[in-house]
């Protein structure tokens, strides 16, 4: 016996091009929707990971513009203000603090980068405390420098690749004309560390004539402590700004929220257009089969049977379109990633579009629900067709 599913399938196949175009419309909407939801999830996950990979939850900087400085730091930029490193002793007295690490960020102008020159940045770090903050950093070659006064350097993966450096090679700090021996090259981390050149903090202080000065202190908190309470206490320190990385995250999320709202609006419009397309396709199909439906009812089909048949057609269109859209979104997620990176003011490392099974199931259910809603009116109209009028072809359509 032929099932309602088979009848619906055959009906859709009778107008292949129209059915296909409707499915493509649904697929495109589903693609946009899945990509957007995947981006929402992926961006936040990557941002969280970037912030976690910084190894500390609070940063202390000299008074200036903490949010911008923190964002720059995430992107591998440089800080411009300095503070005395004696402040570290005061910070360590606080009971909430587990570890701290001092950082001195410095930059020099390299006239031999490109046509107009460029900036070369260096991170002065204390290898012991910095490595403890970032235990996830692994070495591709070599190891950390042990002497904070030595002229040695550790390079992030991409920095080493760009400079074609291996352990044992020399690097030159432009402007200052100081040479460093490369003693370690880090594995790729997908964070700002990949493009960073780390040198001993004391050496960098001497080179830039900044004795006992630093730009940043990274603070790792003890588990379960109240970060806000510590921040309040630290604000009493003179001429410093405290940057909570949770605040940095909020700021960045606000920065991209406009872009997200725009894309969401486009997705909603696309879905509405697809819905209208579905209604139009099914309604046209109902009118074309006006007499056929009348005959169906004459031979015993009840209004609910006709309703189910038309509803099933809608559901099949949406299901196939939705699945196609999800496949598009999965296949092109990397391309979406690249495009989003070009558009957004700041993009964290790692994948920006995260599409998992839960998201796929939710989207598919959403698309099917939209399909069911879209199918109600055409199915209802079909169910109301009067058999004799339909056969005579006189109904007021």
């Amino acid at each position, binding site marked *: 016996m032929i099932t309602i599913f088979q009848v619906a399938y055959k009906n859709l196949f009778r107008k292949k091009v129209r059915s296909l175009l409707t499915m493509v419309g649904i697929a495109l909407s589903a693609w946009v929707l899945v990509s957007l939801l995947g981006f929402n999830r992926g961006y936040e996950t990557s941002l969280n990971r970037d912030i976690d990979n910084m190894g500390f939850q609070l940063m202390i900087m000299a008074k200036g513009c903490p949010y911008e400085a923190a964002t720059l730091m995430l992107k591998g930029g440089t800080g411009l203000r300095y503070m005395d490193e004696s402040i570290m002793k005061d910070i360590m007295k606080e009971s909430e603090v587990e570890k701290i690490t001092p950082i001195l960020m410095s930059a020099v102008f*390299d*006239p*031999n*980068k*490109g*046509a107009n020159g460029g900036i070369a940045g260096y991170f002065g770090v204390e290898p012991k405390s910095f490595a403890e903050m970032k235990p996830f950093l692994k070495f591709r070659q070599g190891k950390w420098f042990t002497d904070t006064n030595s002229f040695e350097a550790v390079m992030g993966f*991409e920095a080493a*690749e*760009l*400079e*074609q*450096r*291996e352990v044992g*090679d*020399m*690097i*030159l700090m*432009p402007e200052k*004309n100081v*040479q460093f021996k490369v003693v370690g090259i880090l594995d790729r981390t997908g964070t700002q560390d990949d493009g960073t050149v780390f040198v001993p903090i004391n050496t960098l202080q001497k080179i830039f004539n900044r004795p006992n000065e630093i730009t940043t202190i990274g603070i790792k908190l003890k588990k379960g402590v109240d970060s806000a309470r510590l921040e309040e206490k630290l604000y009493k320190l003179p001429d410093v700004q405290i940057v909570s990385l949770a605040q940095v995250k909020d700021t960045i999320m606000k920065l991209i929220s406009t872009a997200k709202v725009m894309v969401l609006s486009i997705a909603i419009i696309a879905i509405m257009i697809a819905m209208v397309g579905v209604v139009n396709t099914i309604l046209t199909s109902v009118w074309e089969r006006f007499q056929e439906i009348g005959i169906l009812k004459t031979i015993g089909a009840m209004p609910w049977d006709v309703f189910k048949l038309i509803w099933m057609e809608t559901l099949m269109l949406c299901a196939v379109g939705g699945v196609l859209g999800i496949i598009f979104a999965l*296949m*092109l997620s*990397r*391309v979406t990633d*690249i495009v989003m990176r070009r558009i957004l003011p700041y993009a964290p490392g790692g994948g920006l579009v995260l599409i998992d099974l839960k998201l796929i199931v939710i989207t598919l259910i959403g698309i099917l629900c939209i399909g069911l809603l879209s199918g109600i009116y055409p199915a209802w109209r079909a169910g109301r067709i009067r058999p004799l009028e339909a056969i005579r072809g006189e109904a007021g359509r």
Partner: protein
Amino acid sequence: MIKRIILAVFLIFAGYTAVFGAVGCDLNDPDRDVARLFPESTGYKTIYTSIQKKGGEKLLATVETRLGVKFQGIYETIDVPYTIYEIYTNKKKIGYIHGVNQKGQFGGIQVFLVLNLEGTIRGFYIQKMTSQYAGKLRDQKFGKQFIGLTLRDFSAYDVVSGKSSGKVDAIKNPAPEAEADFRAALRATKKNLILMDEFVLSAQPAQSSEGGTK
């Protein structure tokens, strides 16, 4: 048709993979740099390739033989992506710009060659170099010494000993203190010419002059 779609999808993913592979050598600002290096150009087309894509191990062996030395270090590898800029005046192809990375004494050196359709050097540009003497080697006077030279001239240049004969031997080092970087620049030039010969010049049957522009 289906094959074309599959190929396009494959290229999208293959191209993206290269982003996370070895580092390539692109012009920092192609629009500005192409206009500066090729003043009569009206447009350009960017082509991405690699030894791996073009011929794999066999091509690598050929390039190494022609260069006279094996590829060195952990960055000079078979999968390094190369960017070739095809230069156009309206729809007429008039030349190429191609760069390579080269290990220098204190950092990576990026050597770009501006070539005509026959592969003759008409411009030499070191985009990036870290050295106290980089200014001298990046100076136009030094670059002018390469104009008019071809792969044939560089064939006799020994990248290991730095010895040569003929026109390459006439290239003077403006910074004798930076002999290592001078030799690196010559090695990069020879490698660049060999790669362009393998990727483009020896592959094209005749000088095609029609194409699109960007």
